[in-house]
């Protein structure tokens, strides 16, 4: 069942190489003085957290949410609204982000999860849009224009994230933590129930699982993880607006998951990397870079079962 450490490294070297690159990147970026790429990588990692959280319900649980970016918004406003009242406590903001996302997921999940298929997609979209328009209409917090956050979360003397490189490492740690968490969850007893319910829910009930409460718990965990991404996003951009929870943002998260390989641990991260890579490179050339993203998505949907991550594994499997 368990393989030795060298074998493990040989099998998973791209993942370890990726971690090393992410950890070493700030050194290179500082050396060549290219702070722009620090921002690119931070955005990539934050979106990778969000996409991984979506993957937990979409890829493993078969719950296709078209409103997942609402949790990025909730997490970000959990930084922005306290900041508006000069409350910068990192612990408070983080608790608000996780708690707010968790409560929103719990309340909406109780309703959404009673539906299936297209209805589920539509109702998750509806709840997200309700939040979107709620924040658009709150003049106090900038409405449509959003809010500028003048200082990042404050952890006292413990950890100062005003320094972007430190924020970078905080984001990297959150990404690794998220991946570890998703990995443990999907392979646990709980994960089996979630995956079984995706595969054949009537059968799960027939053998005795009350599937609803497990799927709801999964939905809440997923929302909270995405709330974490939102908290990081608020700190990273220093600006929040309802646009962060617009449904097109949710669509982009889905694209990342599918592109990289839904239902795989690293797929969403790969998807986020490809997405950000294309955005960074192609946006220089054309404002219509989404066209190329679309074409790539079509190719993956048509030929690449398991996304780009799956393609890579097949290439290595053949060798």
């Amino acid at each position: 069942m368990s393989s030795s450490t060298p074998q493990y490294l040989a099998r998973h070297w791209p993942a370890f190489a990726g971690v090393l690159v992410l950890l070493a990147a700030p050194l290179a970026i500082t050396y060549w003085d290219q702070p722009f790429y620090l921002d690119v990588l931070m955005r990539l990692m934050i979106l990778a957290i969000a996409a991984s959280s979506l993957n937990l319900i979409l890829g493993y649980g078969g719950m296709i949410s078209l409103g997942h970016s609402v949790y990025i918004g909730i997490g970000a406003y959990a930084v922005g609204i306290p900041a508006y009242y000069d409350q910068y406590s990192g612990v408070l903001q983080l608790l608000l982000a996780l708690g707010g996302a968790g409560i929103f997921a719990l309340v909406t999940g109780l309703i959404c999860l009673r539906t299936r298929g297209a209805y589920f997609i539509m109702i998750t979209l509806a709840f997200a849009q309700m939040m979107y328009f709620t924040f658009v209409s709150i003049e106090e917090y900038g409405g449509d224009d959003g809010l500028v956050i003048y200082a990042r979360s404050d952890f006292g003397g413990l950890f100062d994230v005003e320094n972007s490189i430190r924020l970078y490492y905080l984001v990297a740690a959150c990404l690794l933590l998220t991946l570890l968490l998703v990995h443990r969850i999907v392979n646990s007893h709980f994960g089996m129930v979630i995956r079984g319910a995706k595969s054949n829910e009537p059968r799960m009930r027939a053998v005795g699982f009350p599937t609803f409460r497990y799927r709801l718990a999964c939905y809440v965990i997923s929302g909270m993880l995405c709330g974490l991404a939102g908290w990081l996003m608020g700190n990273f951009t220093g600006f929040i607006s309802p646009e962060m929870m617009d449904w097109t943002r949710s669509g982009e998260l889905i694209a990342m998951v599918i592109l990289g390989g839904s239902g795989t641990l690293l797929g969403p991260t790969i998807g986020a990397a490809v997405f950000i890579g294309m955005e960074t490179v192609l946006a220089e050339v054309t404002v219509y870079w989404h066209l190329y993203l679309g074409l790539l998505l079509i190719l993956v949907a048509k030929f690449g079962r398991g996304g780009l991550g799956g393609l890579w594994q097949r290439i290595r499997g053949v060798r």
Partner: protein
Amino acid sequence: MNAPLLEVSALSRSFGGIAAASELSLQVVHGEVHAIIGPNGAGKTTLVSLLAGELRPDSGSIRFCGETITAMPVHARAQRGLARTFQITSIFPEFSAVGNVAMAVQAHANHSFRFWRPVAADMALRQRALEVLQQVGLADAPDRNAGEMSHGEHRLLEMAMALATRPALLLLDEPAAGLGPEETTAMVAILRKLRQDKGILLVEHDMDVVFAIADRITVMVSGRAIATGSPQAIREDDNVRKAYLGEGLHESA
């Protein structure tokens, strides 16, 4: 005689004016195979769905192990020891054979709000699943992908998943559907062994299977039970001959 495991009283359910079950009453006692036969559209699968909890009856009641379960959801009935197999194979095609059965074992082993330890490290789960696969004769390649198994193996896997829940009562919806002669013989042998420590409600089209193992037979026509009795009594019942067995008996007897 034993107190009945399952006691169905005056169960009715109709779909838009068509009575799929009408004033049905029947019992299954411990150690008994009670077969339900009847022509297509007689309401046999509806009965199974009503008993399993996927459908709610319009009226009537279901008692199981002395408890009224008429309004209980599917999973709660399963937790109390009522297991079913599906007429149309219903498995987890992406999982291994042993994974399919392990899922059913897990459903009855404490709650599954366990998020951290890998399920693969739960050797007791796998061990128990392998034992059940052994019982139905599928233990030789337990790690095979269930989606790639043959139809006959799927029927056995269905059975294994029901057995893995350690049921007191098995609801079998045409377990021998689509099986070849040899596979059917194997299935009958399995059913014979199972009856010893549980009750079985068997819906089956194959009269050879029914008359080989049933202790009691209920004949359903258009949602009604027109006769209940021993296989011998059913063979000789005039109403049954008229309504249904006329053709069937020549084929099988």
